[in-house]
Structure formats: structure tokens, C-alpha cells
């Protein structure tokens, strides 16, 4: 035992005094002084500290942080000598888990307790377990960007902060499901709300906010983000993170393994959110057509998530089709409004007949819309001069199967046209139907017919409803008189297309131009369930040519100018900084080895056939590049090790290593 004294009070053993501050790194923290020897074990020291503090408290999470060495003393059986601790060491006795504010991919803030003592890789894994996100190896943390305080201190509206800091997760076991959510979320109303925030898509952002948020204007801007990744082999404490700091949680590696809508609601949603923000903030570019699809999916996803239809996909089970029809028929009958007998309606083919105005654009014709008697049956549209002639031969008969249906609608102008592009052996014939209140039914019929289905299809009713809903959105959103029709701040419940597209499209199109295009794209996705729509969104995002490329500014050996290195899940890309052209691509599958010279911050890579590449990192530390490469290599091993525990050692081996230097 340390601290043996003579009668005079002199210590006769080799013991010395060790001062330990209690609490987090606070210069004015209270401190206790212990008498220790070099042989004292850390565990004994901990015990003594607790005794001295003499406070009833759960100290189990506390450990000693050695400030000068930036190191936790976690090996309780090690002696002070083994750690090399002398009397001048500044030690802090503090909790290993501390609260941080996590900015999720959906941009919401969440307070939770993260491990400050484990390597970040494990800390992220724990966070993901808490949030019930599988495959935590794909995510990591970034430092929050420094806020520019120069601007006038605009009072940002205090945003809602979700709090999970009190939730403690039992180790080891995967959290059980309770009431449709992991059990630890079901404790209180707050945590339940938190789970909904995590697992359900957020409503579209305010377009004004969207315009205000910083967007990268060049490739070099895009490199900024990647300089902020934390090091996954070191703990938060070692990286200068303090309790209460804000961190971003993001999918770092664009290699999403085994994405399963059924088991991954949070992961899917957060991934969708990250993709969505990527697009909205122009981190990744897409074409106009692609943007419309993304917007339509967002609209659809938002609609479903607002209406609470989180669950089942709509109409995916063809077996239910007939049942649905029968039920709806029955319903109609019970309501007494059925025009015909139930049996009739089940067996007869539904058709639409009405006076519509038809316009067929032709060269050198000045004729406009003309009224016709139009009959729509099965997938065929026939029109006659008048109703009287209907039994005879129609003027024209068009089979709409395979045709293109384009809405041409202006709600405020009371214009409801359907443009049909009908294929025939000779080419496409174009025809416009001008409807009034029948629009939704005819439109729905045309859409189904173009897919080869008839109005007997069970999706007909929902299609009609969807069209009506969309029209009403336009009415409230952009059509209403006196209500800044085209302003970005139209009423909240209306569709504001500006919240769905990147700002550059806001500049390019008026809202009323965007709406019909989004509507048009929406018709292809209207039947998707929430999860399917999110998955579709993610897939479309993944299909973009620039998807999944993390940019770093580097300087290649022998080159005099900075260039961009793009790191994707399967390749490295050398990109011209000024023009953005791809100069060269190297695939990981051809890579023999890579080395990092930490002193000169240079990464050297050898590929097959003795191709050697070396570059120094400019915008980010070479550790980040190294970790990206190692991380992707690691992720590519997962298919083989499917179902096995995550091989953390392998990950750290592939991504760490620099500590040796």
C-alpha cells in the first residue's frame, strides 16, 4: 500500500501524491489528492478517488483521462508506471459517456450520450444501435461546420431538440420491438416522438431556407465537407470534442448493404433524407427530368407520411384486386347510389361517355377544339360527331395502350386538358381532350389504359382520388387568387413545388410550371408505398453518375497544380479542378496496396501492372483519404462475411494504422 509513513510523518515508501480532478476537463474542477506509488493499479486509484470524493453516485461510467497524453486510462490492471504517469500528470476523473448534439441526416437535432472513450467506430456503432440503424460501419461523424458569427445574429427560431440522453440501452442484445418500435423508444411520449422523427420522412423544407443554406458552387467547395470527418480509430475526447458539442451523423460510405425496407425503417428514412438534402443543396447534380422525378417522389413520400399511411404498399397484391372491386361495389350498393346492380357492375365493363372537346393538332390547320361525343371503354377511346351517331362508326378510335398521357392543367384558368400521344404503326398521333369536372375520371382512365389496364382495375378509384387531391393542392398551393400565386411562400398545406427542387430550379421555373411537371412524374410513382418510394428515391439517387463520390483536393506527385481526387466505393477518380473533367480512373479491384507517409502527408498507391500513384492531400488530412480507401475495401468484404459480426479489428486495421507513427 502506498502511503506508509514514519512517526514523523515522512513517507518511507516510494509513494507520491497524485492529483486528480473530478469532472470533465475544467480547470476549476474540484480535485482530490491521492497517495500512490508507481505500482498502484489504475483500478485501485479509481477506488481511492471514489472513496475520497465520498459521494453517493454511480461512478461506473467514470474513468481517468490523462490530459497531456490525450489518453484514457482504461486498463485498470495496468500500473501507473506502465502508463508512465508521474506526479505532474493532469488527470481528470470524468464520465466516459457525455451528451452531444447530433445533427441527423434529416437535419434534425438530437441530444444523446455518446462514448467519449471508445474509438469512434464503436461509438458510432453504439449510437446507431440506439437509433436502430443497422450497418453502422457505413456511417460516421463530422464536426459541425463553424458557424459564421459575423452575420447579424438572426434569431433562428428555436428548433425542437429531441432528447435521448436519458435512454440507456442494455448491452449486447438487439433491442426488441415493442408497439412497432424498438422497446427503448416506447418509454415515454418524448422518445416515441423521437422515433417517429427518426423513422418518418420530414416534410419538405421551407424554400426560403433552402435558398439561404450554403450550397457548393464548385468542386472545391464540395471538398470542404470531407475535411471534417472525425477519425474512426480514435475516441471523441482525443479529437477535441467536448460535451455538448454538435456533431453531424452522416452516411459516409456510399455502399449500402442489404437495404431492407422492412427491417430498416430508420436507416431507410435517414438515407432518403441524406439523399434528398444532397439533391436539394446541390451537392450532387441532376438533370431537369431527374429532378422532377425526385420531386414527385418527395411529394408522394411526404403525402404518405403525413397521412400516416406508413404501412402497406398500395395495391401491390393483385389478389386483393377483385376483392377491392367487389367491396367497393358493395359499398356503393349499400349507399344506394349504385347506378346498376352489383352483379352488373362486377361483370360489365366500366366505361366513360361524355361530351368533350377534342383538338387534334395538325399541320396547316387552324381548327381548334371541337365538341364530340366521346366514349371510353376498356382501353379504347372512340369519338363521334354526336351522341346520336354513337352506335355507328366513330370518327376515330384510339387504343390508348402504350400511349403517353400528359396533363395540361391550369387550375386557376380552369383549364383541364389531357394530352394523349397515341402510338400507331404510322407514328404517334397527338390528341387533346378538354374536360371540365370529369377531368379526374378521364385522366385516371387514360393513365390506366396507357398501362394496359381498364377502369375495372381496383386502382382506378385511388387514381381518381390522387388526381383530385393533386388538383386541390394546386388550388391552394399556387392557384388561389390574391394568394401570391407563384410566390415561394404559398400556404403550408398546399403543394409548394419549390420545397421539392433544388434552388436552381426555383430560379428557372415558376411554381405553376413546376407543378404540372411534378404531377406528370408523379403518376408513375403514385402507387408506391412509403418504403418503396423511399427506396426508389435512393435508387434514383444512386443511379446518378456523380453518386457516391467524395471529393478531396490533392496534389499529385509531379504535378504543379491542385486537382480533385474523387473517392467512390469502387474507384478513385482524378478530376481536373478547373473543368471538372475526369482525367483518370483507378479501380480498387486493381489496387495492390496503398501506403501513407504521415510525415509528408502523402498517399502512395500501387495498382496492378506497376502503376503507381502518389499524391499529397490539400483540403483534408491524408488520414481521411486513407480511411476512405480502407473503409471501402472493408465494406467490400462484407458480402463474403455476410451474417457475421462486424469485424471491427479489420476495419481499424484498414483505416487506422497512422497511430503507429
Amino acid at each position, binding site marked *: 500500500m502506498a502511503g506508509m509513513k514514519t512517526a514523523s510523518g515522512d513517507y518511507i515508501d516510494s509513494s507520491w501524491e497524485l492529483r486528480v480532478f473530478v469532472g470533465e476537463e475544467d480547470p476549476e474542477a474540484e480535485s482530490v489528492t491521492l497517495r500512490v506509488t508507481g505500482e498502484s493499479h489504475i483500478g485501485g486509484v479509481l477506488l481511492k478517488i471514489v472513496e475520497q470524493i465520498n459521494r453517493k453516485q454511480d461512478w461506473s461510467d467514470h474513468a481517468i483521462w490523462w490530459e497531456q497524453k490525450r489518453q484514457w486510462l482504461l486498463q485498470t490492471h495496468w500500473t501507473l508506471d506502465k502508463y508512465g504517469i508521474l506526479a505532474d500528470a493532469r488527470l481528470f476523473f470524468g464520465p466516459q459517456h457525455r451528451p452531444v448534439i447530433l445533427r441527423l441526416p434529416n437535419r434534425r437535432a438530437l441530444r444523446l450520450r455518446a462514448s467519449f472513450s471508445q474509438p469512434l467506430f464503436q461509438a458510432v456503432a453504439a449510437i446507431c444501435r440506439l437509433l436502430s440503424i443497422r450497418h453502422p460501419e457505413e456511417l460516421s461523424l463530422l464536426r459541425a461546420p463553424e458557424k459564421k458569427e459575423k452575420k447579424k445574429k438572426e434569431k433562428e427560431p428555436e428548433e425542437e431538440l429531441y432528447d435521448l440522453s436519458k435512454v440507456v440501452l442494455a448491452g449486447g442484445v438487439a433491442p426488441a420491438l415493442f408497439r412497432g418500435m424498438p422497446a427503448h423508444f416506447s418509454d415515454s411520449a418524448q422518445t416515441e416522438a423521437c422515433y417517429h422523427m427518426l423513422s418518418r420522412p420530414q416534410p419538405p423544407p421551407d424554400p426560403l431556407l433552402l435558398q439561404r443554406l450554403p450550397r457548393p458552387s464548385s468542386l472545391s467547395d464540395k471538398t470542404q465537407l470531407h475535411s471534417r470527418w472525425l477519425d474512426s480509430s480514435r475516441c471523441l475526447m482525443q479529437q477535441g470534442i467536448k460535451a455538448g458539442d454538435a456533431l453531424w451523423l452522416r452516411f459516409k460510405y456510399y455502399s*449500402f448493404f442489404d*437495404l431492407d425496407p422492412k427491417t430498416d425503417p430508420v436507416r431507410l428514412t435517414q438515407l432518403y433524407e441524406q439523399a434528398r438534402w444532397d439533391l436539394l443543396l446541390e451537392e450532387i*447534380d*441532376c*438533370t*431537369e*427530368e*431527374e429532378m422532377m*422525378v425526385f420531386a414527385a417522389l418527395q411529394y408522394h413520400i411526404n403525402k404518405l407520411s403525413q397521412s400516416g399511411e406508413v404501412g402497406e404498399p398500395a395495391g401491390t397484391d393483385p389478389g386483393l384486386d377483385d376483392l377491392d372491386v367487389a367491396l367497393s361495389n358493395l359499398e356503393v350498393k349499400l349507399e344506394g347510389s349504385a347506378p346498376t346492380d352489383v352483379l352488373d357492375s362486377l361483370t360489365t365493363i366500366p366505361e366513360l361517355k361524355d361530351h368533350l372537346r377534342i383538338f387534334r393538332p395538325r399541320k396547316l390547320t387552324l381548327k381548334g377544339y371541337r365538341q364530340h361525343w366521346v366514349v371510353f371503354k*376498356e*382501353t*379504347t377511346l372512340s369519338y363521334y360527331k354526336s351522341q346520336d351517331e354513337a352506335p355507328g362508326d366513330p370518327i376515330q378510335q384510339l*387504343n390508348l*395502350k*402504350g400511349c*403517353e398521357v400528359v396533363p395540361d392543367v391550369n387550375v386557376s384558368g380552369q383549364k383541364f386538358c389531357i394530352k394523349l400521344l397515341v*402510338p*400507331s*404503326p*404510322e*407514328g*404517334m398521333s397527338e390528341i387533346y381532350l378538354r374536360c371540365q369536372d370529369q377531368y379526374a375520371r378521364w385522366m385516371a382512365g387514360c393513365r390506366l389504359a396507357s398501362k394496359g389496364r381498364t377502369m375495372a382495375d381496383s386502382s382506378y378509384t385511388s387514381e381518381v382520388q390522387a388526381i383530385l387531391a393533386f388538383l386541390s393542392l394546386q388550388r391552394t398551393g399556387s392557384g388561389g387568387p390574391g394568394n401570391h400565386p407563384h410566390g415561394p411562400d404559398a400556404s403550408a398545406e398546399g403543394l409548394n413545388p419549390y420545397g421539392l427542387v433544388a434552388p*436552381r430550379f426555383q430560379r428557372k421555373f415558376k411554381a405553376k410550371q413546376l407543378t404540372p411537371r411534378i404531377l406528370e412524374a408523379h403518376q408513375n410513382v403514385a402507387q408506391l408505398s412509403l418504403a418503396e418510394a423511399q*427506396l426508389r428515391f*435512393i*435508387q*434514383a439517387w*444512386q*443511379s*446518378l*453518375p*456523380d453518386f457516391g463520390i467524395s471529393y478531396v483536393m490533392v496534389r499529385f506527385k509531379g504535378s504543379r497544380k491542385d486537382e480533385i481526387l474523387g473517392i467512390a466505393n*469502387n474507384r478513385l477518380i482524378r478530376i481536373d479542378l478547373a473543368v*471538372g473533367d*475526369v482525367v*483518370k*480512373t483507378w*479501380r480498387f*479491384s*486493381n489496387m495492390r496496396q496503398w501506403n501513407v507517409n504521415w510525415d509528408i502527408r502523402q498517399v502512395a498507391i500501387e495498382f496492378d*501492372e506497376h502503376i503507381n500513384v502518389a499524391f499529397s492531400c490539400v483540403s483534408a488530412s491524408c488520414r481521411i483519404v486513407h480511411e476512405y480507401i480502407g473503409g471501402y475495401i472493408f465494406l467490400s468484404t462484407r*458480402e463474403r462475411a455476410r451474417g457475421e459480426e462486424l469485424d471491427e479489428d479489420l476495419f481499424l486495421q484498414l483505416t487506422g494504422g497512422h497511430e503507429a507513427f
Partner: protein
Amino acid sequence: MGESSEDIDQMFSTLLGEMDLLTQSLGVDTLPPPDPNPPRAEFNYSVGFKDLNESLNALEDQDLDALMADLVADISEAEQRTIQAQKESLQNQHHSASLQASIFSGAASLGYGTNVAATGISQYEDDLPPPPADPVLDLPLPPPPPEPLSQLVVKVHMNDNSTKSLMVDERQLARDVLDNLFEKTHCDCNVDWCLYEIYPELQIERFFEDHENVVEVLSDWTRDTENKILFLEKEEKYAVFKNPQNFYLDNRGKKESKETNEKMNAKNKESLLEESFCGTSIIVPELEGALYLKEDGKKSWKRRYFLLRASGIYYVPKGKTKTSRDLACFIQFENVNIYYGTQHKMKYKAPTDYCFVLKHPQIQKESQYIKYLCCDDTRTLNQWVMGIRIAKYGKTLYDNYQRAVAKAGLASRWTNLGTVNAAAPAQPSTGPKTGTTQPNGQIPQATHSVSAVLQEAQRHAETSKDKKPALGNHHDPAVPRAPHAPKSSLPPPPPVRRSSDTSGSPATPLKAKGTGGGGLPAPPDDFLPPPPPPPPLDDPELPPPPPDFMEPPPDFVPPPPPSYAGIAGSELPPPPPPPPAPAPAPVPDSARPPPAVAKRPPVPPKRQENPGHPGGAGGGEQDFMSDLMKALQKKRGNVS
């Protein structure tokens, strides 16, 4: 051998089961008259069956195939064999595809559904009479039940300039048709085989994707079309899966990559494919470059810079950069198919002959809605075409490929086995296929007998590699089939046969009779008769073909009977008044019964002799057989 024989057994058993069912069913259907004149181009639309189940369809297809093979084969030879085998067989020769079709239609009416049997049937081919000479002929299969299943008789051009006709029903995918053709041609079944559609008028062509519904594609053709379907090998079809690096890693520095690419090893290819096709979303090859675009309605071509993305083809507008935000959409793939253009240098003054074309599948004539693009070289052309297919079809393409590989692998394994057995080649392919197709079960009855027969046959084959002897010895259709296989590839049957082809129609009457109920037991073998040459006139007499037959419109709505007469049988005498749709059978019965009866006797003995005949086949089967016999006999009579 054991395996193959088992397969065959299974096929037999399923077949027998089917027949049972058929017999049980009332056999109501009337058979449609065949179209004597091969009207227009390659394919005619034949009838729609209504409730037929897939299995039935399959059977029919097989029968047709068999018929075709028979055509190829020497008639006399076939007859001899048949005689040896069974007396009935002679009569059976008349048996035509239509007959079989009718049978099946009857089954269909019953609503009995099995997936199976058809595939197995091919084995019978040898025994069967030669198919109608004219592939073009339409076999109308008549019964028009409430929901007709449309079928087309499709003439497929082989690479040796011969043609084969097959019946394709509306549910069959290109893959199924290919499988059929594999059986008929005994080719090597490799993945490059494809159905290939050619538009002579537009000078464009493309392969059917394996998942495409053949009838649907054909229904876009106009009635007087010159379009053709070819069966041939195109290595472009799945080139991306064989050498993915040529498509995925080829973008920059062509020379350099070319060298390295060729060295790519199998493992890297595999991982590249996995990466590109097995992720959450597939990866479309990055493809961009200057192409020539034909200007609408003109013969001038403009060079533009195009880029391929998953969402479509884009181009760089004048004065813009090729960043995503500047791109203008040229076309999206949802409503268009991609075709190769041939000789467009001549036709449209294209800068090169490496052209591809995008058009809506329904467009058949020159139109401003057809987009013509022209590449600098064939490599670029192939990259674009493949890239567009990947973008359009996505993972389906890969799935198709894997199925094709599985098929090819199976086939090659079988052929290897078969090498021992001279007769074997055909069997291998059919064997596995049947096995897979086999549905539920009616199989049990036939199994033993069939297997025994097969084994015997196989023994023969093994001992004497000479196919012919084996054939002669065995009544079993399976055995003979092998020898015929080579013949199948032969050129189309002589004109004489054509008349016979019409005979196919007579089959319908036969069927009707069968339903009527001859109690004679006909061995399954017999039921595949040689084709007879009935006079075309017969056809008109037959019940009017189902409306579908005449017009295979996209919607498959059957056209009115009159139209049929006008089109197919314009020259022929007007068809007799059509019997009510549900019970067409009566009419044929009245017409045909006598001849059929006369010939029947021979059949029964054979059947008994046949070890394969299972007790289970039962009376129903016999009825069926007897009907067939009648039909055949009648045909015979007509011919004589």
C-alpha cells in the same frame, strides 16, 4: 441416362395425365379450320383459346414443333416407322397441329390447368406426322370461350434459310420460345441464341429480350407487315456479361484500356458484374460522346454530344457544358425500344453504317417519332445499344442472362451425357426442361410405363448408335425423335405439304369427335400422328376460327368471324355457319365421324401393347385418342 429417362417418364406421365383430363372434359371444342393460304408475311395469327391453361398451351406448342419437325422429316420414313410401331400411326399421319390444338382446347375448356406437359411432348415428334408444310399457315384453334387466350403461329427464320413455325401463346416470353426452338433444333443452346426481329421496311432490327412477351411484340406489327423473326446467334446479346469491362471500363483512353481489359480475369469480371448489377440499384455504364442525329424528316445528320444516364439519353445544347445541370433530355426509355439500323448509309445517307434507332414499338412506318442515331464505329454502337438496354431493362437483363446461362449449362451437360448415346442430342435439352416445367401432378399414371419404354429405347440407342433402327423398334416417340432432330433444321417442306398443312385444320373435327366419345384406347404415342395433306377446302368447312385468329390486335379482342373469312379464306368457300361458341364440337362431329370410325380399330391394339400405357390413363384418355384417330383418318381420307 437414368436422369434423362426419368425426365421422359415424367413428361409422359404428365402427358397422360393431361390426356386423362382432356378426355374427362367433354372435349367440347370445335377445331378451327386452318388457313389454307399462307396469307401474308411470316406469321399469321391463329386463334385464341379460351380457358387454356399454360400446360395445355405448352402442349400445343410442342405439338406444333413436332409437326414442323415432321415436315422436315421424310414423310415416307415417318410412315414406315409409324406403321411398324402401330397401324394406327398411318392414320395418324394426318394428324396435324390443329388436331392437337383442338384437343388441348378441349382441355382448356375444362379449365384444367397444368403448366407442364407441353415441354415434354417434343419427344413425340418423331412419331408424329410431318407438320403442315407451310409454316405460314394459320392454325386456327377455335373454341371461343369467354376469355380467349390468343395464340399466334409464328414463322421463325433459321440461320440456314429454313423456317420453322411455332405456336406461341400470349403468355409466352421470348425465353420460352427460345427453349422451344432449342428443342426443335437441337442447337447448342448457348446464351447467344436469340429471337431477332427485323423490319425490312425500316431496315431496323433488334433482339427480343428474354423477358419480353412475344405475342405482345408481334401484336404491334401490322397485318401486311414484312417483318420477320429470326432465330440466330448474336454475341451482342449478352456481351456485357461476358466482357463487362468493355462496357464499364472503357470510357477513357481506349487503347490503353483495350489491352488491359482483355486480360481481365474471370474473378474481376464477376466482381464488376456484381458491383454493377447486384447493388441496391444497377449501374448504367458511363457513356458519352459525339453521335450523329438524323434530323426529323430530313436526310441530314447533325453531330451532337450525347450522354447516357439511367434516366435517358441527354445531349449538350449548343454553348453549354456537359455538366448535369446543362444537359437537355433527348429521349427517355420508357416508351421506346432500341434497334440496330442496317444499311442506313444507303437508305438515309447516314455518315456510317453503325446506326441505332429508338422508336415506340408500335410505330411500324417511317415517322418523325423515330429517332436515328449514328456512331463512328461498331464498338461505340455496341456500347450504346447495350448501355441503353441496361438503362431500360436494368437488372432484368442480368436475370435473363443468368437464366440463359443456366439453360445453356443444362443443355451442355445433357449433350455431354448424350454423346454416348447417338440418339441422345435432342433428349438432353428436352429432358431437363420438362423436368422443370413439370407441374403438379397427374404424372403418376404414366410414369412407370413411360420410363420403361424410354429405357428400352435408350438401350437401343446405346447398343446401336444408329438412330433409325432404334426408331423402328420403338413405338415410343421419344426415341425416334432424336434422329429427326437433324432434319428439323432442313428447309421448309415442299409445296405438296402445304396442302397438308391445311389438313391441320381437320384436326379440329377430330377433336370434336373425340369428345363425342370413341371409347377406343389410343396410346399416347399414337396421338401424335403424321401430318396429312388435306385439301384446303376442308378448312373453310371447319368451324370459323376464333376471331382472334384473324386479327391479333394488341388488345386481343377477337374480330368478328366474317373478317376471318375475308382474310384467310377469301378464296375458300365460305365457312359453314359457326356453331355456338361453347359447343363447336357438334359441327365437326357430324362432318367427320364416319371416316374416323373406320380407321380406329388399329389403334386400340397398339395401345394395349404399349407397356407405357398406364392404367390410369383410363377411358378419358382413350376417348381422346380415338378422337385423334378419327381426325387423322379423316384427313387420310381426304387426301386419298
